């Protein structure tokens, strides 16, 4: 975990160093002579070996200092912290809903394998896996905000509600969240459902299920007590593994729906060539991902006591 984090910071640092130009070119006016520029570089520590520069940068990063945005001049960390709640709201709700929907769908699909619903679910998940998520977002926007005018196409909170009550605000935010949430959901559901279907199929062919059937336990109980949980275990691992894709996908969706989260911050920073912000979001999102996969591992150990750490 810690070496992985160190690696990520090192990689981000290398990327930042690989960007064309250096900060002195940004902050000085052209009348400053070459000699002063060298002095300036010395003052900023840019003449030191890479490794020293990296360690100094790391020291700051560990203290939560990612430097200042080239564009707004604000500290990167506070910009990220401002955006974090929106991102967490969106990604955690989509994660929870994914689990809630995937489990019954996979179960139905596997229980009546090759049945009507299985074909419907399998086919839909194939389409779902082939959908570019941002395109799905565009289509939903087209249908629900422009065609039917049911949902706002972008944003987080309507400006006229800034002073409204907490309840009204929450309702408005939820209203704004529907489309990005559905987009994210469909994107992540497809793969998981298919995977879970395999898991249930595998569990249903096990001896203990046969034994349970032989003892006359009802099908419902077999499904809910035996199959559902056992097949859900690998899902936890898979979720941990898919986390980077989920969060990466959420970035584009946030950008598309102008959802003021970390992802939009990052994508905007890409366009503005705002490297400190870019690196900050890169490191922070990787930290989130690592935390998420750690949680997934812990949940797995909790759910399956046979696994020892």
């Amino acid at each position, binding site marked *: 975990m810690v070496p992985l984090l160190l690696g990520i910071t090192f*990689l981000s640092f290398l990327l930042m160093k690989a960007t064309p130009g250096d900060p002195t070119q940004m902050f000085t006016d052209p009348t400053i002579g070459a000699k002063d520029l060298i002095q300036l570089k010395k003052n900023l520590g840019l003449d030191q070996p890479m490794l020293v520069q990296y360690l100094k940068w790391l020291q700051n990063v560990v203290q939560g200092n990612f430097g200042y945005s080239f564009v707004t001049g604000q500290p990167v960390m506070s910009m990220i912290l401002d955006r974090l709640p929106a991102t967490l709201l969106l990604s955690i709700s989509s994660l929870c809903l994914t689990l809630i929907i995937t489990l019954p769908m996979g179960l139905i699909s596997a229980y009546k394998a090759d049945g009507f619903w299985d074909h419907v679910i399998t086919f839909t998940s194939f389409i779902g896996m082939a959908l570019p998520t941002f395109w799905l977002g*565009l289509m939903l926007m087209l249908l629900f905000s422009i065609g039917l005018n049911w949902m706002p196409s972008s944003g987080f909170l309507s400006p006229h509600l800034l002073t409204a009550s907490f309840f009204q605000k929450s309702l408005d935010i939820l209203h704004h969240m529907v489309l990005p949430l559905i987009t994210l959901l469909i994107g992540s559901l497809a793969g998981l459902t298919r995977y879970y279907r395999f898991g249930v199929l595998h569990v249903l062919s096990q001896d203990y299920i046969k034994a349970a059937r032989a003892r006359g336990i009802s099908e419902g109980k077999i499904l809910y007590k035996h199959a559902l949980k056992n097949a859900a275990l690998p899902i936890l691992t898979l979720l941990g593994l898919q986390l980077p894709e989920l969060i*990466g996908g959420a970035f584009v969706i946030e950008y598309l729906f102008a959802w003021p989260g970390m992802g939009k911050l990052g994508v905007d920073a*890409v366009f503005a060539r705002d490297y400190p912000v870019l690196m900050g979001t*890169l490191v922070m999102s990787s930290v989130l*991902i690592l935390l998420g996969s750690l949680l997934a591992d812990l949940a797995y150990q909790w759910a399956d006591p046979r696994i020892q750490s």
Partner: protein
Amino acid sequence: MTFKAWVSAWFLGILVLVALFLPYTSLDPNQFDPSCIGQPQSPGASAWLGTDDFGRSLAVRSLFGARISLFVGFVSVFISSTTGTLVGLMSGYAPRWVDDVVMRCVDLMMAIPSIFLMLTLQVIFKPSMVTIVAVIGFSSWMGTARLVRAQVLSLKSQLFVVAAKARGISSYKILFKHILPHTLPTLVVSSLLGIGSAILSESVLSFLGLGVQPPHASWGNMLENSLNYLRESPFMIIVPGAWIILTVVALNFLGDALRSMFNPKENR
């Protein structure tokens, strides 16, 4: 092979042929209509699938888009599969500590959201055809490396490898002549699925303007301007998206069919 897989194979085959021979036809993806600038047309007699905001035919452009999107898909998967295979072979066969180091690097790469890495790299190395292919390939070799490594680990203790070792055959030869062929089925399947996800990556990058640059047409960059014409012309979104979905679905069906062909024991 199932019916779905046959249809997919035919679809992809025809698409590849069209993409290959398209430049020898009289179609021009950049033939624009000055009177239509800023006014995308709906499908009509002159343009079957409508036109984009420059009056260019969406049908023609999406055929040319197939050329570029498929090219990006194939080449970047070639890069990622080759890299992944080499890394996986080496990591699985090398001493334990090398394996550990390499696998930690793979973990590291996997912990970074690939789309974000690709965007950053595209900003650093100005977007061009070469960088797109390289960046997509470079951000997606890890899965293959893991797959191949896992296979090498299970293969290297098998009798035929032990026998080859006993006969004093060099590690290089063992890896490439004895172990590699056994991993090929997995590789073919994962590459087919990889082409699909590379096409999807290309479309995201191009949609954000950091992928294939105009005037070239790719399915992704045909979508780039569509956001401005959501109201006027939904066809600018629907047409390229439909091509992407059809192609990626076909690739996935085919990959799935091949997988069950290679592992007949695995239940569907």
